């Protein structure tokens, strides 16, 4: 799949923002006054900024409000509804903490759950696409949720907890890659099933319908330097999870340790999310000369 910059930034930043807001809402940290302002502002900026980045992905951003209507069937619509609800329900809790030194735990708790539900909804957009075998697996929501929780814990200053959650994220990433490799290798869809000609014999693309590119080939038959995939996985795993976990375990809790862990985590997660799209094979590639494995 085409690794669109807006989608990579959106999923990484909004995951981080909703993770932070979940910790703030659940009352694991209870800042008030200017501290609260800084934390809630960071949460809203990351989550809201991510949402804004996703709007740039649209062909018609001016119709974006329609995306709130189809929550009964569409995970993309559910994500929009849940994100708006999370940010909305969090507002009284945030305002109470900042302006009146009075957190509102009921609003906070409900909003924290909505934040996590938003992250799950984001991941389900991908996990429910059967035509992309690598995504169609429970490890997709596991990675998104683990990343949001680990990054959120780090931003909320829960360094011990963050270290443990980074270890969980490392396992989730490794499982996602391994499961993805197996899913593509064992995929039921083949050139034979895509054309129905497998019943006659071995099927191979002889000629494409056209010599140039088209929307499908650019968006879904995107061929990237897969030869770098192993290196990038290592970078993502080390930067995104293992190094931050080690750093937090070995260094005494400090702003420096947290800052270094955050920088590593962000860089690693951007690599991981780039791979998430770039490595994902769509079955439509079978019509364009991709063999099944």
């Amino acid at each position, binding site marked *: 799949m085409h690794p669109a910059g807006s989608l990579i930034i959106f999923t990484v930043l909004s995951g981080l923002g909703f993770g932070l807001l979940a910790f703030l809402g659940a009352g694991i940290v209870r800042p008030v006054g200017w501290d609260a302002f800084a934390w809630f502002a960071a949460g809203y900026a990351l989550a809201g900024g991510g949402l804004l980045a996703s709007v740039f992905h649209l062909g018609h951003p001016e119709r974006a409000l329609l995306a709130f209507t189809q929550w009964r*069937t*569409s995970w993309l619509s559910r994500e929009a509804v849940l994100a708006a609800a999370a940010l909305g329900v969090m507002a009284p809790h945030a305002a109470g903490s900042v302006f009146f030194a009075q957190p509102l735990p009921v609003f906070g708790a409900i909003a924290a759950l909505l934040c996590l539900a938003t992250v799950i909804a984001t991941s389900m957009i991908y996990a429910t696409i059967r*035509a992309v075998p690598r995504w169609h697996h429970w490890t997709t929501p596991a990675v998104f949720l683990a990343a949001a929780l680990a990054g959120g814990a780090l931003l909320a200053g829960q360094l011990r907890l963050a270290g443990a959650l980074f270890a969980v994220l490392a396992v989730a990433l490794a499982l996602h890659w391994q499961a993805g490799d197996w899913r593509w290798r064992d995929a039921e869809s083949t050139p034979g099933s895509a054309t129905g*000609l497998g019943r006659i014999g071995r099927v191979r693309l*002889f000629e494409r*319908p056209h010599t140039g590119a088209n929307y499908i080939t650019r968006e879904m038959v995107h061929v990237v330097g897969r030869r770098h995939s192993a290196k990038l996985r290592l970078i993502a795993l080390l930067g995104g999870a293992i190094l931050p976990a080690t750093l937090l375990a070995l260094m005494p809790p400090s702003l420096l340790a947290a800052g270094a862990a955050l920088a590593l985590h962000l860089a690693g997660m951007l690599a991981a999310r780039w791979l998430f799209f770039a490595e994902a094979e*769509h079955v439509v590639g079978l*019509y364009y000369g991709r063999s099944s494995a």
Partner: protein
Amino acid sequence: MTDLPTSAGRKLGLVIDLDICVGCHACVTSCKEWNSQGYGAPLADVDAYGAAPEGAFLNRVHSFEVTPENAPPQLVHFPRSCLHCEDAPCVTVCPTGASHKRAEDGIVLVEESMCIGCGLCAWACPYGAREMDPAEQVMKKCTLCVDRIYNENLPPEDREPSCVRACPTGARHFGDLGDPSSAVSQLVAAREGFDLMPEQGTKPVNKYLPPREKDRATAAPALEPVGGAGGFLGWLDRALSRL
């Protein structure tokens, strides 16, 4: 709404005969022509006369080489377009309700004025049937020529999809696949028509008819030496070998 309708019984769709298709692309060009006028935004091209022309099409013809066991490879031309699936994943993922499947005839359509151009439906389709219009930034797909098949301003023989009307070999058929007595349903039954990627669980309405089995020569394969023959040929072989 992006809920899938419970089928009313009518399932309009195409039956494509892979035995007959000669890969002329007439269906592709007639589709492009018809859908560049009338229904929805015209199917656009980018850099049409330049170095890297590209555009949106609702129908594409691929060519595949199929090699049976113990027989030479054969070439199969393979038109690919929307299959108007009963369990259309492109419809349920749409966040705005632009993508929908009509209850009355099962045609899957995009209401372009509601499309935000997010592209998720194109990702959800295993068959690559949807393409973003490069000029309008809305999703385009086969409409089964909904603006022809019910159009009383056209003579009755033209009230079928443009690709079917254009096909010079009669490889494309249009009809109600929900009615077991319809001509298309009977054709599918007689020729063992099949679904594309049934494992994706989309329940396509359109069916494909397999190429008929080719004759296989039973005599000695061509290009084999005539060695070991007796009579005149044997004498000639021996005489020439001695030279």
